[in-house]
């Protein structure tokens, strides 16, 4: 009995799912404050002044958390490649 060969579409979907799994894992390893800032900014699409109102934190602090969060996220993803 031979295993079915995945179609290109299935392979693409598996690759996307694997990438998303790695990103989720990397996000979960970030400090909570960085993860929160990244998700509010990019997943929720909030502007920095809206984030500041939600979190009660200054905009410059939030910009810094997003900046350092992206750097750390990239570093974590590179380590798992």
């Amino acid at each position, binding site marked *: 009995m031979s295993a079915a060969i995945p179609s290109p579409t299935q392979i693409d979907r598996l690759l996307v799912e694997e*990438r*998303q799994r790695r*990103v*989720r894992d990397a*996000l*979960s390893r970030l400090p909570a404050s960085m*993860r*929160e800032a*990244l*998700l*509010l*900014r*990019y*997943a*929720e*699409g909030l502007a*920095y002044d809206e984030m500041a109102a*939600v979190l009660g934190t200054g905009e410059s602090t939030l*910009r810094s958390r*997003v*900046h350092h969060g*992206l*750097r750390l*996220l*990239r570093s974590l*993803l590179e380590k798992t490649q």
Partner: protein
Amino acid sequence: MMSCPTDDVLRRFADVTLSAEQTERLAAHLAHCERCRAEDARLRILIGDVKAPFPEQVGLISLP
């Protein structure tokens, strides 16, 4: 042509939080600098990764 921008300026460009003047100058720089263009592309992919739907992660945040 302006010299290569800092990481922070490139991130703010991808984050669409630079001023119109800074955006224009950086866009002109990117047109001629392959290294910065590649870095900008990497940043945008990373931001796109965070934008992708992650139900269990987004659920960690409860907005008022």
